C-alpha cells in the first residue's frame, strides 16, 4: 500500500504540473462558466456540458493516457528494477494517470456550478454528470493503459486509441441508427438495449439524461431504456455497467503489466 501511495504521489506531482492537464481543466472551467455567462440555466448548462464531456473526456483520456504511458516506459523500467512488486507499481502508475484526469474535469467543471450554487440543477443531475465524467475518465484511461502496454509500436498505439475514440463516440451511434433504420420492421428492442450497454459513452449519456428529465433528447435507445427499466432501475444498471467498463479494461491492463517483458 505504501508503494502504491509513493508512486501515486510522484504521478500526481508530475501531472498536476503538466500543462496539458492544466489546460484540460481550464477548458472545462471556461466552457461551463461561459455557458452560464450566456444566460443558461443550470439544467441547460449541464446538458450542453454533457455533450462536450461525452466527446472530450474519452478523447483526452485515450490519447493523453496512451502517450503518457509510453513516455513513462523508461521510468517504469527503473522502478521495476527496485525491490517493488509489480501489482503495487501498476496500481500507483494507473492512479497517477486516472486521478489527475478525473480531477481536472471535476475541478474545472465543478467550480462554475459551485459558484452559481447549482443554478437550479437538481442534485441527482449534478451527481450523474460528475459520475459520468469521472467514470469515462477512468474507463478510457484504463483502455489507454491497456493499449500502451500491449502495443510495442507507439505510433500504432496512439492510432489505436484514436480508433477506439472514433468508434465509441461517432461511429457507434451512426451504426446503431443505421441498424435501427434498416431493421425497422423487426422487434429491435432487446438487441438495441444490448448495444447500448456495450458502449460506455452511450451509458454515460443515458445516465445523465434520465436525471435531467429531457427524454426528448435521449434518442431511440435512451427512451427505450427508460421505458424498459424505469428511471430507478435504469440508473442502477447504467452505473453498474459503467463500473464494469472501468473494471474490465483495468483488469486486462493489470494482467498485461504483470506478465509482460519490459
Amino acid at each position: 500500500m505504501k508503494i502504491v501511495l509513493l508512486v501515486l504521489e510522484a504521478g500526481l506531482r508530475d501531472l498536476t504540473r503538466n500543462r496539458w492537464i492544466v489546460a484540460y481543466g481550464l477548458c472545462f472551467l471556461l466552457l461551463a462558466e461561459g455557458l452560464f455567462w450566456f444566460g443558461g440555466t443550470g439544467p441547460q448548462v449541464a446538458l450542453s456540458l454533457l455533450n462536450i464531456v461525452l466527446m472530450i473526456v474519452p478523447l483526452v483520456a485515450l490519447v493523453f493516457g496512451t502517450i503518457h504511458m509510453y513516455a513513462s516506459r523508461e521510468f517504469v523500467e527503473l522502478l521495476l528494477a527496485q525491490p517493488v512488486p509489480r501489482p503495487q507499481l501498476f496500481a500507483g502508475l494507473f492512479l497517477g494517470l486516472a486521478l489527475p484526469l478525473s480531477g481536472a474535469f471535476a475541478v474545472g467543471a465543478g467550480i462554475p456550478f459551485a459558484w452559481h450554487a447549482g443554478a437550479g440543477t437538481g442534485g441527482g443531475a449534478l451527481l450523474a454528470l460528475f459520475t459520468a465524467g469521472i467514470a469515462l475518465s477512468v474507463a478510457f484511461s484504463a483502455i489507454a493503459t491497456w493499449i500502451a502496454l500491449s502495443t510495442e509500436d507507439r505510433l500504432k498505439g496512439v492510432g489505436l486509441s484514436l480508433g477506439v475514440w472514433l468508434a465509441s463516440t461517432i461511429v457507434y451511434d451512426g451504426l446503431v441508427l443505421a441498424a435501427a433504420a434498416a431493421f425497422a420492421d423487426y422487434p429491435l428492442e432487446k438487441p438495441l438495449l444490448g448495444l447500448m450497454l456495450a458502449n460506455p459513452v452511450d451509458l454515460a449519456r443515458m445516465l445523465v439524461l434520465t436525471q435531467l428529465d429531457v427524454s426528448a433528447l435521449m434518442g431511440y435507445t435512451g427512451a427505450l431504456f427508460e421505458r424498459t427499466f424505469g428511471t430507478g432501475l435504469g440508473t442502477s444498471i447504467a452505473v453498474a455497467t459503467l463500473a464494469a467498463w472501468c473494471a474490465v479494461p483495468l483488469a486486462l491492463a493489470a494482467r498485461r503489466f504483470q506478465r509482460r517483458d519490459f
Partner: protein
Amino acid sequence: MISANGLRKKFAALEVLDDVSLDVRPGAVTALVGPNGSGKTTFIKIVLGLTRADAGSFSVDGHLADAAGAYRRHIGYMPQAARFPENLKVKDVLALIRALRPDAPRDEELVSAFGLAAEMDKAVGTLSGGTRQKVNAAIAFLFRPSLLILDEPTAGLDPVASGILKEKIRQVRAEGRSVLITSHILAELEELADDVAFLCDGRLRFAGTVAALLERTGQTRLEPAIAALMRIEGARRSALVEPATTTGWPTPAPEAL
C-alpha cells in the same frame, strides 16, 4: 554475485539467449560485451526481473529471484538512457527512489560528487542529458547494493563526471562488491574490467579473466582482443550462412570495431 544457470529466452522465433550460464565474481568488474543484438540487454533485463526467462535460473548474492522482487534490494541499476517524469524535480525523483528502499544503507557520495545539490529544485525535463545521466548514476549507487548493473554508464557524461564514476566503480570493487558493465567504448572497459563475458547470437562464447582472453586471442590489449573475438564469430557466422549466398546476396564482411 550473479550466478546464472542455463538461461534461455525466445522472442517469437528468435533465440535471444541460448543456454547462458555465467558467474559474476564478487570484488570484480565484469564487462559484458558482444555485437548489437547479441543478447546483452536481455541478459541484464532477466537478472533485473524486467523480462522473464523461458528456462534456467539465477541468483543474486545468493538470493534466488522471487515474484515480489525482494532480491532486487541487492541490485543497483543504471539504465542506458534515463527518463524521469518531466515535471518532477530532481529531489522528488531521489526522494521517491529512497522511499521505495527505506531500509537500505545509503551512499550519497555520487550525489555530492556530481554537484547535484545545485540541481535539486530543477524540473527533470529542463535538465541537460548529461545531468540526467548523473542523476541516473547517483540512483544506481544510492544503496550500497552488492551488485551494480551499469548499461553504457559513461555515454553522455563529460570527462570529469565520467572520471568520478570510474573512480566510484573502482571503490565498489575494492569493497568486494561486483559490477557488471556493458559498453561499446572498449578503451573504457580496458581501464576497468577484470573479467570479460562475450555474448554472440545469444550464446556465451567466452567467459573468463582479461588475462585469459588476451592469451586465447594472442593479443596484448583488451580492445584488439575483443575485436578478434568478434571477427572469429563473424567468420563463423558467415560460414554458417554460406549456402544462402547462392541467392545472390553478398556475404556481410566480418566487421572489426
